[in-house]
């Protein structure tokens, strides 16, 4: 009987915890958006964050995109040649990248590289009372700390996605045309006729939504460190960071499916 009661008690406790956690994250999102519109605007901080999230991710995104495009070129060629339609390789590579892999892989790379860093930074600031210190100086921490990260991610992720698409397509060109001998004219003209504005829009919408997800979850898990179950001390920052990366990766993939299904 005791065991059954305890299970019910735990179920209730967990439900309450998750509801209040979700509420906390919702409140965090609201305050962060409000923080973006508060004055004075921190332009220098925004540029610094764009540099960190965007410019410093260039190399990672470049190589990820190049190898992904190259693999797509080889795999696509292998599959298409079975049907004798190697000429469609250009469209296959471009559509896969622009509609799907560009936004998703960029989001995952940015989560791993910049999202984890944002979460750990904010977690440590919370732990060492730097957030309290800001509040005591009557400085809104959402405007001061979170708003530049939000804006910077919203600027950087779509741009990185476009970079991913372009580099990926040239990766596919390298293996498909230069290595496996597909006709370069067919490669690019097929691409031109099959990639529609709609596809590019879908990719860009996805990248904006993913940017929101990444920055919301990663900054939120760090900022609300002690309100979550991650506990206290240095371990709590590492747990919160792990949680942020896992949660935002899964949410990105979930929303990728939802958006594709809705906007197809």
């Amino acid at each position, binding site marked *: 009987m005791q065991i059954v009661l305890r299970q019910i008690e735990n179920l209730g406790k967990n439900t309450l915890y998750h509801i209040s956690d979700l509420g906390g994250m919702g409140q965090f999102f609201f305050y962060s958006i409000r923080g973006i519109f508060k004055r004075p605007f921190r332009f220098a901080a925004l540029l610094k964050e764009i540099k960190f999230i965007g410019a410093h991710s260039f190399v990672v995104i470049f190589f990820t995109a190049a190898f992904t495009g190259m693999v797509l070129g080889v795999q696509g060629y292998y599959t298409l040649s079975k049907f004798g339609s190697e000429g469609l390789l250009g469209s296959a590579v471009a559509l896969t990248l622009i509609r799907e892999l560009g936004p998703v892989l960029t989001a995952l790379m940015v989560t791993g590289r910049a999202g984890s860093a944002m979460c750990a930074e904010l977690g440590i600031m919370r732990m060492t*009372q*730097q957030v309290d*210190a800001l509040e005591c*100086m009557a400085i809104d921490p959402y405007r*001061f700390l979170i708003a530049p990260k939000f804006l910077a991610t919203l600027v950087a992720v779509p741009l990185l996605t476009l970079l991913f698409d372009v580099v990926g397509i040239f990766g596919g060109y390298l293996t498909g045309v230069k290595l496996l001998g597909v006709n370069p004219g067919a490669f690019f003209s097929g691409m031109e006729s099959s990639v529609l504005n709609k596809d590019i829009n879908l990719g860009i919408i996805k990248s904006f939504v993913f940017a929101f997800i990444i920055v919301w979850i990663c900054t939120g898990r760090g900022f609300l460190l002690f309100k979550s179950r991650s506990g206290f001390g240095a371990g709590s920052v590492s747990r919160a960071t792990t949680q942020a990366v896992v949660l935002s990766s899964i949410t990105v993939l979930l929303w990728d499916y939802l958006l594709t299904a809705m906007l197809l």
Partner: protein
Amino acid sequence: MIEPIIQFVDVHKSFEGANGSVQKVLKGVNLSIRPGMTTVIGGASGQGKSVAIKLILGLMKPDSGKILVEGRDITVMGTRELNEIRSNFGVVFQGVAPFDSMTVFENVALPLQEKTKLSVQEIKERVMGSLEQFDLVGHEDKFPAQLSGGMLKRVGLARALQLQPRIMLFDEPTTGLDPARSLEIYRLFYKIQREMEYTSVIVSHDIPKIFNLADQVVVMHEGMAKVFSSSEEIQWSNDPIIQDFVQMTMGHIYQSTAENE
């Protein structure tokens, strides 16, 4: 009678432990802090000293009771009003809480940049002036992690004083410092308070040294606050709790003088 600047009226605060147990930290605390005076809040660890500071700053809300700052109850205030009240405060946290990705100069300049309309040049002059006052010239481009404990405390003090606060709160200002550095910090407190005439609240267990600074001593024990006007009053108190506290914190010093006699 002078109106108190900070007042606790029957303040209760409890925390929920990891296993669901409730720990009552403050059980009906009444306390008045008079303007321009130095109040030292002492007591063993875990008696709610730091909680009291967080309550004054509005970083926590009490379960019940009122906290009045300049006659206004901060427990029922919204963020905007609270920020207005907070602009009267200067705070030095236990670990100073420096912004560790900013240099010493940027740390000290931040309140001026955010809260005043001074030009870059004026801010620079004022910050360099106060760095000189706190003997930090030559260290302005260093990061907090590159400083010693005593220097860090001075950076915290310089940062907290930039906006000329009327109330200064210090949470354990000398923890982790050697006796010489602690004395140096106390001397600095005394000097600056003379100049700026703020009300100061110091949470400390550096007893009895800190008593020399105090106009009023508050001893926190078992969720209650007992107020004394001097360190002598504490030593001669008949209250068994306070006697215990005296024995615990300064017993050996007074015992040895007794033995010498």
